[in-house]
């Protein structure tokens, strides 16, 4: 943790800042990543998706609101806020309302353990990775509640598909992450980045330093697409089959909450992927001779920069896949999970264990 003594003391000092009984400083420290993520998810994730899809499809994307359409998403949010909040008369009102809330809260709770720098972390749990995996399972409850509560056949189909899909894909995803945990010898999210930081930059990343790491990396990359319901695994919300899947009946701000939860989850899995296999906030630039690039690009602000860049890169990969590939069928999805990814994740697990013993 030598990179950021100044920031550590700074955040220590800040977290000791109280106004009366209110731990204002602590709130600020914990809120920084969340505020960023909220802003990102609200505006630039959606904006990026629109622009990337547009460029892939020979279009311009949003161009009217603000320069290059930068304010388009804000306009959309204003529109969604103004919309009537409809609850169908035959819906189960409690489940219908609680569903998007659970989704939203679930997808944002995992941000508590994402390290945005040597000191930027909401809670450095010693079981941070388990917590992050568990939170994804929590989202399933929200999907099931909204799908069942909508009292709509399409929503029910979407919910059933989604739950089956997420619960199944958790197994290869978790085992792939466990491989990473074995490499780091820790479940703390902060520890992953610490272990992968070093003077030679990206050479220290598990993906490059460990000959087996590419296998769990790919397995997690594929499973994370399924866990966030992104194409080619967007079966629960397959618009050409199930209208809109589990959020068919939702409108206005409740719909926006699903939307935000999706973008939050996208960033979360991208961040987990880059933390476990690509060094999190550790700078990828190596020290070359007298040019100490790594030292120059390490530090609190750089740490946040690197992890956000890595997260954005994998979000870009997700969008890239989404706008390129068709959708798998339900049975093909399950086949891929149980007959391809799960066996390979076991192989990766054993190989990693052997490597860790005899390296």
């Amino acid at each position: 943790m030598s990179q950021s003594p100044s920031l550590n003391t700074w955040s220590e000092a800040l977290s000791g800042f109280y106004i009366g009984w209110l731990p204002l400083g602590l709130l600020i420290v914990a809120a920084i990543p969340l505020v960023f993520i909220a802003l990102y998810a609200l505006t630039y994730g959606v904006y990026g998706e629109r622009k990337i899809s547009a460029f892939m499809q020979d279009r311009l994307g949003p161009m009217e609101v603000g320069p290059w359409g930068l304010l388009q998403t804000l306009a959309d949010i204003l529109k969604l806020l103004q919309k009537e909040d409809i609850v169908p008369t035959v819906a189960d009102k409690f489940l219908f309302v609680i569903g998007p809330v659970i989704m939203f809260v679930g997808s944002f709770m995992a941000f508590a353990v994402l390290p945005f720098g040597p000191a930027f972390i909401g809670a450095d749990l010693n079981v941070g990775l388990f917590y992050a995996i568990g939170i994804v399972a929590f989202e399933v409850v929200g999907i099931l509640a909204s799908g069942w509560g909508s009292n709509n056949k399409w929503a029910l189909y979407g919910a059933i598909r989604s739950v089956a899909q997420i619960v199944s894909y958790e197994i290869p995803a978790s085992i792939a992450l466990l491989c990473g945990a074995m490499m780091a010898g820790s479940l703390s999210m902060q520890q992953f980045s610490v272990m992968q930081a070093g003077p030679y930059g990206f050479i220290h990343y598990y993906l490059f330093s460990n000959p087996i790491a590419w296998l769990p990396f790919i397995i997690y990359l594929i499973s994370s697409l399924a866990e966030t319901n992104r194409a080619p695994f967007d079966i629960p919300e397959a618009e050409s089959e199930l209208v809109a899947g589990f959020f068919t009946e939702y409108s206005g701000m409740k719909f926006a909450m699903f939307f935000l939860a999706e973008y939050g989850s996208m960033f979360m899995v991208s961040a987990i992927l880059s933390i476990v296999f690509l060094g999190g906030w550790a700078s990828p630039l190596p020290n070359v001779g007298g040019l100490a690039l790594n030292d120059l690009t390490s530090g609190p602000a750089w740490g946040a920069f690197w992890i956000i860049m890595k997260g954005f890169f994998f979000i870009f990969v997700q969008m890239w896949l989404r706008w390129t590939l068709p959708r798998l069928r339900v049975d093909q999805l399950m086949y891929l999970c149980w007959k391809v990814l799960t066996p390979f994740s076991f192989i990766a697990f054993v190989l990693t264990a052997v490597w860790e013993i005899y390296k």
Partner: protein
Amino acid sequence: MQELGKAELNSTRIIRQNDNRVVIEKDLDTEYMVLSMGPQHPSTHGVLRLECITDGEVVVEAEPYLGYLHRCFEKYCEKVDYPGIVPYTDRMDYLAGMNTELAYCIAVEKLLDVEIPRRVEFIRVIVSELNRIASHLVAIGTYGIDLGAFTPFLFCFRDREHILNLLEWISGARMLYNYIWIGGLSYDVPADFKKRVAEFVTYFRPKALELQKLLTENEIFVKRTKGVGIMPAEVAINYAWSGPMLRGSGVKWDLRRNDPYSVYPELDFEVPVPDGRFSDIGDSLSRHLVRAWEMDESLKIIEQCLDKMPEVEGFNSRSAIPKKIRPKAGEVYGRAENPRGEVGFYIVSDGKSTKPLRCKARSSCFVNLSAMKDLSKGQLIPDLVAIIGSIDIVLGEVDR
């Protein structure tokens, strides 16, 4: 163990066990669910409604309900004189207006027995083949959307835009042209038309290849469509299928070859049918492939027509149009190969009126769709969507 009784409902059994205890056994109860797919559903291509009886994700039976777009085409025809029907035919298959116009005009011209100028014939073939490409582009693009691939759709529409611009240039309309008239054309083509069509052909060839790489060669796409909704050739013939649907089942039947009209006999083109190398014959992928191959053949036809089209000084495209269209008494059936299959018009004239006594339209999509019940039996819902997409229905033509 002895079974004492059985209730019909919930398959409940009352059983006396060996130790004389009587127990009631109940099977795990499942119910069929009636799922109304459409008319407001993204993948029913308009206002088709399918009433599916589903067992989980499996469709036990799907019954198509039609008529949401019914506009009394055949009744209108009895009230409108012959040239006035042409715009109505546009609105039948709104994705291939030129082809439908051509089919109608062929029928009336048969009844009238008029000689069509050669240049008109070539222009007719060029515009209808252009329209065939445009229509297949929509079919392929929307099929991609049905299977979750959004980008090919926009690529298709980008290329289709060029065709629509060409057709707008010559006819003034983008979809509902009213360009092919009985005995002629509303206008001759503009001076640069040949050049711009040739430009389009050179532009489109690599784009078609790109589309093929993006969609047709995609592993997931092939997995989703190969072996889905197989229709054997005999059953397809019995259902009176036509067009790419029938050719997808391996039957080499194309009206441009089998019942030639216009100048098609002079042109050199293939009738592509799947040979089982890329797909199982008769499945959704075959039908998709046939459409993709047909676009290439259409390009070939257009190129040949551009070469052979005679240039006539001061050409009047309306020269052969009769002043008063009042056919002699009789009946006629004229048909043409539309992008979706055989479109035919059966017209009865009483010899006195300028309006047909009866005009029956044979719709290709309607006939192709009639096999839906057979095709959908026991399929998963995603496969059902893949099958509907491969039929490539235009509800305007189904309901008329």
